[in-house]
Structure formats: structure tokens, C-alpha cells
């Protein structure tokens, strides 16, 4: 139990997938200008990351390993991710149209979001159990969302009150802001011991 809590805290704070591992940056740049879009993307990411991790684990451990085909696991994982995203889109359109209206546009972008594939890759690399994978994926997605929301909130404020130099507007200032937040998150280091 304690191990799961450790992994959750590590994934959100000390080993934040965006601010420590520098993953999932593409949408970071384009979507962290507005708090609303950032949080929308965050929710979509949480859904997809947990769903795909939950699907990829049994595929890797129950199908690929026993048949000695782990060689192609990259291909299988990315196809599963693409497929799950499609599935999620269809399900949302059919059963949760309100959600679809709010988050629908983000889904296609998530397929190439490094975060989703990375969580599955880490799960394999660190040989996590199924439950640990669920906790880890939730934590990572939460951490990513936390990071993008913080940066978006700051950037929104910055645009209102600050005088950002022309060349720095857009992606440039997002990077600088993210850097400062990443620096702050470094302070969490040492909170938990992770294996």
C-alpha cells in the first residue's frame, strides 16, 4: 500500500512526467496559452493514459511475453493507443455528448502525445504489476495536467499584465515559464524513495 502511495506521489511531484522527464511537450506549447484549453487537454490525457496503460499491460504480459514477441511491442503499443483513442471518441460521441463537446477536439492530438506512449514504455521498463501500472498511469497523467495547468494559468496572467518581447511570445515564454516551475518542482526531490 505504502509503495503505491509512494509511486503516486513520485509520479505527480518528484518525478513529474512533464517537468522532470520532459515528456508531452508538443501540446504543452500549443495549448498552454489558455487555462481552459489546458485543463481540457489535461482531462483528456488522464482518460487516455489510464485507459491505454490498462489495455497495454495485459497485452504485453499475457500475449506478447508468453509468445516471445516482445520485439514488436512498440508497434503494438502505438496501435493500441491509436485504436483506444478512436474508440474513446466514438463512445464519447454516442454516450457522453456533453463531454464530447468539451474535450472532443483534444483526442486526436493525444495519439502522438509522448506521455501516453511513455507511460506504457515505463511500465514495461520498470516491470510494474497491473495495479501499480494503474496507479502510476493515473499519477503521471495527473502530474502532467498539474504542470500544464500551472503554466497556462501563469501565461494567461502574463499576457494580461506583462510585456513579453516579440520573439519570445508564444512558445518561447511557455518554455521559460515551464522552466521556472520545473525549478520549483525540483524542491520536491527527496520526498519519497522510489525503486
Amino acid at each position, binding site marked *: 500500500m505504502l509503495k503505491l502511495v509512494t509511486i503516486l506521489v513520485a509520479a505527480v511531484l518528484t518525478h513529474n512526467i512533464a517537468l522532470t522527464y520532459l515528456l508531452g511537450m*508538443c501540446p504543452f506549447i500549443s495549448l498552454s496559452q489558455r487555462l481552459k484549453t489546458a485543463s481540457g487537454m489535461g482531462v483528456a490525457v488522464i482518460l487516455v493514459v489510464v485507459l491505454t496503460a490498462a489495455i497495454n499491460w495485459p497485452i504485453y504480459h499475457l500475449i506478447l511475453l508468453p509468445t516471445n514477441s516482445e520485439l514488436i511491442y512498440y508497434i503494438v503499443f502505438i*496501435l493500441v493507443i491509436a485504436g483506444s483513442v478512436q474508440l474513446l471518441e466514438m463512445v464519447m460521441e454516442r454516450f457522453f455528448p456533453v463531454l464530447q463537446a468539451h474535450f472532443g477536439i483534444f483526442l486526436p492530438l493525444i495519439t502522438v502525445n509522448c506521455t501516453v506512449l511513455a507511460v506504457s514504455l515505463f511500465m514495461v521498463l520498470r516491470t510494474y504489476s497491473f495495479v501499480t501500472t494503474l496507479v502510476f498511469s493515473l499519477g503521471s497523467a495527473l502530474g502532467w495536467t498539474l504542470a500544464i495547468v500551472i503554466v497556462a494559468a501563469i501565461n494567461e496572467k502574463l499576457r494580461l499584465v506583462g510585456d513579453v*518581447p516579440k*520573439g519570445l511570445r508564444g512558445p518561447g515564454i511557455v*518554455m521559460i515559464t515551464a522552466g521556472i516551475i520545473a525549478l520549483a518542482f525540483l524542491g520536491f526531490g527527496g520526498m519519497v524513495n522510489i525503486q
Partner: protein
Amino acid sequence: MTLRKLLGKEGYKTFMKGVWKDHPIGSMCLGICSALAVSNTVANAVAMGVGVTFVLLATAVIVSSLRKLIPLRVRIIVYMITISAFVIVVDKVLKAFFPDISEAVGPYVGLIITNCIIMGRAEAFYSQNTLPLSLLDAVANGISYSYTLISIAIVREILGFGTLLGFKVTPEGWENWVVMSLAPGAFFLLGIFLWVTRTLAGVEPPREG
């Protein structure tokens, strides 16, 4: 200009676009993920640059040669399968012949698959252009990706580790700027890099909203 003569008018245009005007990272903001994570030492940056260029070339070969045959509806899946397969090749070759670098960049090699540059070029260019032009585009994008990574890596390695390609270059008593070898350093440097290139290239800032 001899390069222009060598590549022909179309070819030269394609090449220069990839290297400067439509710089994948600077103006199109693609492929940032790994640019940040892998640029902490020059050796890693070179390895990643070579890896991405290889996958770009291989993808260009497959997608461009088969472009008239790939059914429209499944083209994204085709790109994914192709890119993943060649990324696996890069991964295996690194593990076998450069195990130290493989340990350092490990999971990020797998993430070349989600590197927007490759998918983006496949969809926007290789699926609609001849093989020679596609190869040129692949080389051009590979070069610009590599030089971005390497320039950031040079600064990060010197400031953060005091070395360049493993050779100590800083004087005695130099205190390493550890922050440079960690995430925040990457963010700051990329921010500065974007600032410089976007100002020089006169890129318009994105519409607020």
C-alpha cells in the same frame, strides 16, 4: 551556389526549407519532447539526431515509394507501423553497439515514434512527393533537428558537466551549473533558442487566443 546546382531548383528549395525556413522545431514547434530531454550531453544529442534522421530517411523511402498504393483511410496506421519498426531497429543497434548511450537515452529512443516531426513530414510531404525530393526533405529536417539539439547540448554539457563529449573543458574550480543538466535548464535554453531563431527569421507571434 553549387548546392543549388547539385540539387536542382526543386531540390534546393526543399532542402533549405527543411533546414531553416520551416525549421521543424523553431517555426513549426514539432519534436520538442526529445529536444528537451536528450540535449543534456552532446553525445546523447548526436545519437538522437542520427537516430531521428535515420527514421526520417527510412520512412521517406517507404512512404514515398508506396505513396500511390497506400489506401487513404489507413495512411496514419501505415506511418505508425513504419516509424515504429525503424525505431525498433535504432533501439536495437544502439543497445548492441553503443550500450552507454543506450543507457543514457533509453526510453527516449522509443519516443521517436511519437516525435511529431516524422509523422508530420510523412503526412505533409512524403505521401505526395517523389522519392528523391522526400529523401532531401528527410535529410534537411534531420539536419536541422540535429543542429538544434547539438547546439543546446553544447551549452548544457559545458555549463552543467564542465565537459564536451566527455572531455573536461572548464578550468579548475569551476562550479557546475547543475540546473543546466536538469529539466529547468533545458526549458530555459530552448526558450532562448526559440527567441533567437524566431526573431531572426521574423516569425509572427501566434494570435492570442
